[in-house]
């Protein structure tokens, strides 16, 4: 039984694309067949984060419009053969996505893969609503700050009204992924705490990703962080989140990189 997951947030720059790539790679590492789909038509980034930007020939729009077959547009990852990418078009815009075309592509992907992870664009317009439309599960990516939390709240409202599941009278399964979390700054009151965010959004937490240089470095190298250095704190947090998505119960912790004595002594000044 395949599952369609939408990674969404409302606000831009909170880590949707990074999280899509990291969760997709972590799921694929467990042997599941995974495809990550970029819905950000016109501003595609997932190909860069996946390190596949030079291998894009056909894209989602070509498949939606019938110019290419799905198999021609899918890009198999070179590191993990269970991981594939369906890139977005950079030259078109989101008006080229049609509800019927996206439904058809989703139907075909469901036959081929166990997990279909859709990277939603920011905003609440066409691209974002079509990305969430056919999903079974939503991962709401939120930073611990007020504007991101309010935008996520808006998106949760849309997930409960504008999706196929909602229109059939059901409720979509929703999970909160808190990214760029810095426990020191949250303690000092510079950031919202985990409990504050959970209290406002009232959906279950699937993971806390610590703020880390590793994430940026992995993105620039074109490697999902879960593949670049599986032992670093954000990679472990994403792997745990992926296992929770598969239904496992893992105790929630705020992962931190282990620091030496000097790190402990000077950690606060560096932050």
């Amino acid at each position, binding site marked *: 039984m395949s599952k369609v997951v939408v990674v969404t947030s409302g606000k831009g720059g909170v880590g949707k694309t990074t999280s899509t790539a990291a969760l997709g790679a972590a799921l694929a590492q467990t042997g599941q067949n995974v495809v990550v789909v970029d819905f950000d038509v016109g501003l595609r980034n997932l190909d860069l984060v996946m390190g596949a930007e030079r291998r894009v020939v056909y894209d989602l729009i070509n498949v939606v419009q019938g110019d290419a077959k799905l198999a021609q547009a899918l890009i198999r990852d070179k590191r993990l053969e269970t991981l594939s990418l369906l890139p977005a078009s950079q030259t078109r815009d989101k008006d080229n996505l049609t509800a019927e075309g996206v439904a058809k592509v989703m139907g075909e992907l469901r036959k081929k893969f166990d997990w279909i992870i859709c990277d939603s664009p920011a905003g609440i317009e066409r691209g974002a609503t079509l990305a969430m439309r056919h999903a079974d599960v939503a991962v709401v990516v939120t930073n611990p700050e007020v504007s991101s939390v*309010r935008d996520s*709240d*808006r998106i949760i*409202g849309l997930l*409960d009204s504008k999706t196929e599941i909602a229109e059939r009278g059901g409720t979509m399964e929703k999970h909160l992924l808190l990214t760029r979390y810095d426990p020191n700054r949250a303690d000092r009151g510079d950031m919202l705490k985990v409990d504050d965010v959970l*209290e*406002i959004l*009232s959906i279950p937490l699937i993971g806390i990703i610590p703020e880390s240089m590793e994430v940026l470095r992995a993105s620039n190298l074109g490697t999902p962080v879960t593949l670049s250095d599986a032992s670093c704190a954000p990679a472990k947090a994403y792997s745990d989140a992926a296992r929770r998505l598969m239904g496992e119960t893992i105790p929630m912790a705020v992962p931190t990189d282990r620091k030496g004595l000097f790190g402990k002594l000077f950690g606060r000044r560096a932050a």
Partner: protein
Amino acid sequence: MTESLKSPTPIRLRGRSFLAIVLSPELPFSNWLAGLDDLARRSTGFFLGRPIVLDVAGLDLSREALEGLIEELQARNVRIMGIEGARASLLGPGMPPEMRGGRPAGDIEPAEDQAPTEAAAKPPAAAPAAVAAASPASVPQVTTVVPPSPASLLIETPVRSGQSIVFPEGDVTVLGSVASGAEIIAGGSIHIYGALRGRVMAGSVGNPDARIFCRKLEAELLAIDGLYKMADDMDPQLRGQPVQVWLDGDAIKATTLN
């Protein structure tokens, strides 16, 4: 501790609902306008003095076509107060404003004009229907079927940012929280069993006895019967507390619940 949240110059913002007739034109317009002319012939003055909204949802229209349609309707003395279901690009200066959020309110049946001989035969004072038929400016009888509605609305989920709950018929109870950027407008009282972070307007149809209750007050705006208070005007001691808000004359009062 009863805090008077008195405002020096209260401005009342009240809601009021009117029943508008919705015209849904169909393509081609020439056929539809012919049908409209036929209706107008059978029921003289039906459109006079009534609020009329044009519903163009689902029509593939150019701006010129819409302007042309509005002119055709104006030539028939049908004045459009608003347009529903139009893309923003279709509307511009000089066009009726966009309307949204309408709720269906049953069918309106135009009263048929009585046959002229019949109307002439009866003395005008004896039959009200004949009076209506004789003077086109008076409004013909309409029959509206409004479904009976419950006087309270229960919402079991949190009200999310951007959502708007409008319930002029009575009380609204929310079991979850009301998020920042969400709003609730109720004809009666409003009860929030979670945190109230959005905007709530109780007694919106002119009910000064309506109250607002919440478990945790962090509201952006509170209003009862059109008198409102912004977050900055509220007593900071009430923030985060379970609070009850009511109206005492022209002053909004608030107190903690425990």
